[in-house]
């Protein structure tokens, strides 16, 4: 598809036009921390970031989301019956999402949009979104996207890819949705697409961090599960759940009813496999009652179960957030190496 040149002086104006047709979401800085927020009128996304602290997943899958409303007032005709609330699924544009976060939506979609069940909240929000990606000219030291099925200029999952070329942006329309967005913004000056390719190669060459995932699918689940390295890997873990909250591909949630007097909401909140309550039975029995079991679940899910279930690679895009934000430095790259190279026949594995 074609590449458009956007002079930076035309950037704010174009976004202004977009805000007539889209709800705009973008990275905003608050006390040095970048995160995705809905942009206020006239507010510009702040592109001065390596990556946001939390991923962009909240644009489609908010941390707290109302699923139903209800009345407990028996004088009401429809008391105790769940009603879907009105929600705003008008077109929204997520501006400045990194290619890794956009690719993550495609991985997560396999969970929310299945042949048997469709999660209406996720799917409606996803379909309402146009993703305008910001290519990474300078990927970080903890970025390992190129070996996690992604890359600094990766296009899958994006509708438009924007690259910062100094005094202007280069915008590549990837889908029709993306083309429509560029048109709505009034950006139309065609440019040579070759420059993006050059920038892409330069950016990819800067990625110094990698993972090997080639052998994961051939491992026997139960052997990997019983591997000796889990105990040591999990030792430092605080079970705080930071890794899961900041992860663009973690999708687990809890469902809770909250009552306010005679009315209430059924809502879902992000949950985490790091928490003991996640799996505890009514009887008190907990199949993942120990820290080690929970840490193993997180990595096995991302690097083995997902691989086996969908045959489409690992459930990780290499954004590096969990590596950067883990308070005790548990590093998925290291764990992935342990798993990928695990040999149950060897008396000691690499990790021991």
């Amino acid at each position, binding site marked *: 598809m074609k590449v458009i040149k956007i002079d930076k002086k035309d950037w704010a104006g174009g976004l202004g036009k977009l805000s007539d047709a889209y709800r705009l979401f973008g990275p905003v800085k*608050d*006390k*040095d*921390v970048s*995160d995705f927020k809905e942009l206020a009128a006239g507010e510009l996304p702040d592109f001065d970031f*390596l990556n946001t*602290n*939390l991923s962009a997943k909240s644009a489609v899958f908010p*941390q*707290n989301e109302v699923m139903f409303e209800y009345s407990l007032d028996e004088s009401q005709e429809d008391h105790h019956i769940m009603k879907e609330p009105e929600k705003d699924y008008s077109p929204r544009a997520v501006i400045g999402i990194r290619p890794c976060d956009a690719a993550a939506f495609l991985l997560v979609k396999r969970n929310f949009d299945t042949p048997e069940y469709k999660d209406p909240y996720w799917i409606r929000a996803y379909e309402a979104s146009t993703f305008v990606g910001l290519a990474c000219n300078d990927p*970080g*030291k*903890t970025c390992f996207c190129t070996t996690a099925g992604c890359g600094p200029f990766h296009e899958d999952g994006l509708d438009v890819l924007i690259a910062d070329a100094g005094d202007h942006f280069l915008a590549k329309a990837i889908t029709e949705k993306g083309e429509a967005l560029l048109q709505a913004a009034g950006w139309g000056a065609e440019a040579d697409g070759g420059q993006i390719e050059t920038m892409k190669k330069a950016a990819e060459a800067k990625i110094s961090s990698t993972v090997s995932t080639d052998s994961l699918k051939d491992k026997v689940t139960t052997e990997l599960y019983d591997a000796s390295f889990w105990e*040591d890997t999990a*030792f*430092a873990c*605080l*079970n*705080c*759940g*930071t890794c899961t*909250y*900041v992860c663009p591909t973690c999708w687990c949630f*809890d469902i*809770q009813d*909250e009552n306010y007097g005679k009315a209430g909401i059924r*809502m879902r*909140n992000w949950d*985490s496999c790091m*928490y003991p*309550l996640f799996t505890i039975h009514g009887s008190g029995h907990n199949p993942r009652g120990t820290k080690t079991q929970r840490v193993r679940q997180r990595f096995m899910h991302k690097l083995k179960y997902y691989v086996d279930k969908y045959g489409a690679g690992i459930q990780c895009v290499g954004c590096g957030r969990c*590596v*950067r*934000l883990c*308070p*005790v*430095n*548990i*590093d998925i*790259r*290291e764990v992935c190496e342990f798993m990928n190279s695990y040999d149950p026949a060897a008396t000691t594995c690499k990790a021991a």
Partner: protein
Amino acid sequence: MLGYTDKIKEISERLLKEGKVDMVIGFKKGTMPMMNEPCVIKKAEDAGKLVWDSNCGINLANYLTDRKEKIGIIAKGCDSRNIATHIVENKIRRDQLVIIGVPCKGMIDRHKIASMSETEILSVTDAGDEIIVKAEDSEKTLKKAEVLQKNCAVCTHRNPVIYDELVADLVEEQKDADRYADVREIEAMSAEEKWKYFDDLLAPCIRCYACRNACPLCYCPTCFVDESRPQWVGKSTDPMDTRTFHFLRAYHCAGRCTDCGSCERACPAGINIRVLTKKLEKDCFESYGWEAGLTTEDRPPLDTYKLNDPEDFIK
């Protein structure tokens, strides 16, 4: 603190070899600048993995809770105070422990150092009272005293309060530290200003509970926020629920908190949570002359009583 690492390795190797402990809990080198990973060493030949530098901020007492083994544990001042608290609260027995004391000169503030660099930091190394920060296109030498974690900058218990081994001579304690400047600032605010301050302080919280889980005091089998019968607190990031969590957690730590800074260090949202616990620390100090974890003899003021208590509620 140069040279500590060698001594830690030597002591740990000896303790493991002589069978005095089943394991040593310490730090190993992390995969990123300014990060070390808490680790457990069970074989004498693995003692070489242990390290010590200005990036050992996580409080290792957290890893002792309810353990049954005989344990060697590396402890800087605050860790040792939390070990003492653990002993008082029956979360570990003194005779299970060989405490390898580390006279500490403070941990560095990794967020602060990161924000001082234009480009990503490649390595940070200790050099006595200085820190050498290497980034892609620069190398800077910083005075360590200027980039300490905020709690370390005002720490008055750098030396371990209980120990069985010592990795170096005791260091001089900081004498003129103004420990509660930040608390006084908030105390001076009007009610409206305070409301706004706390609102703003806790707004970025994502309720991940990293602060709670990094805290050696937070060992309740089920935290009040996780209770379902009755459910005290909602599970969303509703500001009321978020505040309830933070305020109540702080109160649970009153008279027990050693200001080790683990909560703040762990927070992924960069929240200055210590202002809550510090206020209670200050109150306990001013009301009872109490500082947590200095002894294994006395219980913290809020879980004990005295017959001669001047307040009449007890009589």
